[in-house]
């Protein structure tokens, strides 16, 4: 009897251990609607190097990608890893849906300044930074010359406004492409100007609410001025729609990311310049990252970490950043520190504009209710674009509403 029991226990142990040797099926949700060749290469190599592991990449369009991952997590069937906007990380972490990232120290040193702040909540990194962008100002030189102004970088907000006004008054185009739709890039564009004016939203050291400030008031006042020289009805436009107007020669300038060169009309006579400094700051920009998050509860977090690391480091990450075959993003690493001797951005004035502002840039604020945060900003911005209230009142109200989020 005893021997039968032992045999049964032995059988159970063998069966149990065989579970760990069975295929681990990783579910990777990737945004963009298509599986990139570079990612597929990494995944294929990962599968080859990890016997028993299978990776199912699900390419989901941008508009529904994040929500899909959150819905699956809320339903108790999380993906193994998912591409997420870093703004979601705090909410995911606070709700115990993801696990901390395991970023090696040599990679930490190679990231561009400020990158890790976008994935850090209370000292812990919650995502593997995957895509990074900064912003700059694109100016249509044909329209500038038609308006009788030199096509060169404005160095402050007064020069910016004067240039936009000249284009608005002397051509058929609007001077400035202003973004005001209820969309995330409305908030992003505002932050670009805020950070170029010495402003902050959250104090990175203390976590205090810094939104209600003189810098914010000056930035909102800029928007109030720009409405007069912007395209009709900015509250109906988000950035990609303003891009269409820019391509159509209907706005003289607008703020865009490094992919701008690839989405503007070929042969367009344009320059790209740093965001001009506001009265209270220096030229800066907004640091936005998307990350790969490892979800809790998949049953194979360790393997998921390995895959996330493989995707977000070295040549694989470089292949994503480079404009040739990749997305054409601001380099997330200082790739020379990782041994890539002639990175795509070296010696190219175009990339210098997007990289040089990083030091003075600020991160997208990390709060739990990021969509409510977006509403707070959009409400404030639309308030001034529609002339609903004064700058003072709108900033005060936004400051109070933002306080409730912290």
């Amino acid at each position: 009897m005893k021997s039968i029991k032992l045999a049964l226990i032995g059988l159970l142990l063998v069966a149990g251990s065989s579970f760990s040797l069975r295929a681990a099926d990783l579910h990777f949700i990737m945004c963009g609607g298509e599986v990139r060749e570079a990612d597929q290469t990494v995944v294929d190599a990962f599968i080859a190097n990890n016997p028993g592991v299978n990776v199912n990449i699900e390419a989901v369009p941008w508009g529904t990608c994040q929500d899909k991952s959150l819905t699956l997590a809320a339903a108790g069937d999380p993906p193994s890893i998912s591409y997420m906007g870093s703004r979601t990380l705090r909410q995911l972490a606070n709700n115990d849906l993801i696990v901390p990232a395991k970023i090696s120290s040599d990679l930490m040193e190679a990231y561009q300044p400020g990158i890790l702040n976008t994935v850090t909540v209370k000292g812990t990194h919650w995502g593997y930074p995957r895509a990074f962008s900064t912003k700059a100002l694109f100016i249509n030189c044909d329209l500038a010359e038609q308006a009788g102004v030199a096509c060169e970088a404005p160095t402050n907000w007064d020069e910016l406004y004067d240039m936009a006004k000249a284009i608005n008054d002397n051509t058929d185009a609007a001077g400035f492409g202003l973004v005001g739709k209820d969309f995330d890039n409305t908030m992003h564009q505002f932050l670009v100007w805020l950070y170029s004016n010495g402003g902050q939203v959250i104090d990175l050291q203390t976590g205090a609410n810094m939104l209600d400030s003189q810098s914010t008031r000056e930035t909102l006042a800029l928007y109030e001025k720009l409405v007069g020289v912007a395209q009709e009805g900015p509250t109906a436009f988000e950035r990609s729609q303003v891009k269409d107007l820019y391509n159509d020669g209907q706005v003289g300038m607008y703020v865009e990311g490094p992919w701008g060169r690839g989405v503007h009309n070929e042969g367009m006579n344009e320059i790209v310049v740093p965001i001009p400094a506001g009265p209270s700051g220096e030229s800066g920009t907004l640091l936005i990252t998307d990350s790969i998050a490892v979800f809790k509860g998949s049953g194979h977090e360790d393997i998921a970490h390995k895959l996330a690391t493989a995707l977000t480091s070295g040549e694989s990450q470089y292949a994503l950043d480079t404009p040739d075959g990749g997305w054409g993003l601001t380099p997330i690493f200082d790739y020379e520190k990782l041994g890539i001797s002639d990175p795509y951005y070296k010696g190219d004035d175009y990339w210098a504009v997007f990289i040089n502002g990083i030091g003075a840039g600020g991160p997208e604020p990390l709060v739990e209710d990021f969509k409510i945060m977006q509403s707070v900003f959009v409400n404030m911005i639309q308030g001034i674009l529609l002339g609903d209230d004064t700058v003072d009142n709108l900033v005060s109200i936004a400051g109070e509403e933002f306080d409730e989020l912290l």
Partner: protein
Amino acid sequence: MIEKKSKLDFYPYFLLAPSLIFILVIVAWPLIETFRLSLTDARLGGESYVGFENYQELLEKKKFHRVITRTFFWMFLSVGLKILLGLAGATLLNAKVPGRALFRVLVMPPWVIPIAIGCIGWLWLYNSHFGLLSGIAQRIGLIDGPFGFLAYKKPAFYSAIVTDVWVGTPMVTIFFLAAMQGVSRDLYEAAWVDGAGRWHRFRRITIPQIMPVIVTMSLLSMIWTFNSFEIIWILTEGGPRGATTTLIVDTYKTAIGNWKFGEGAARAVIIVALLGIFSFFYYSLIKKLNKFEERK
């Protein structure tokens, strides 16, 4: 003679059981679960019981009162226009004119086209720089430059109303047309012989005869319009600055956009309650009006 008590006949209930189970699962359970959720602070990370706190917070917010008011205004204006245009359209389609069959077919596309596709078309029509409406208005000198119909609060609201009326009027028209075709021609002939004009015949014969259909269509249309989501969401997503946010849009933003399931469920329960109360008063009013007419 003492009659034997008959046994309870389970057979009818046995036949009804599949439908009852279906209704319980599809209708009753979600309702009960929604109400249960509304008593919690359910969100991404879990839930805990909070009683009627969600309702209390909602009813104290002035912003929520404005959403309710806006929703009823949206409903009454849109349905009023649909009923009026539906009546007018049905009357025209009921007339004996050449090509009547073709006109009846041509009235259908707004209803037949998937709402999302239709709304995307309207989105482009309303566009300030590339849209037909702004373009035509500029060419005929109505406006000096491009106009963003969806960029300003009141224009966005009324533009959404126009789209909603465009989508909903064909169905109302068809139902009214069917009802009008059921009215006996003898009544019209008798009235004509007595010298009643067109408007008099319409008011005294057509309207009373099709009143049950008008009442039913009005109520159904009000419920559908009250809960109309896709049109507003595609056109404006409730903006600008909440100008087109109705109760259903607010519920969606709270529950699905902000992952606050408990608060969203409270809003959904309030929608059900408001529609229930409204329907009760609506039918009571119609009953009173009918009694008044009968006594006349």
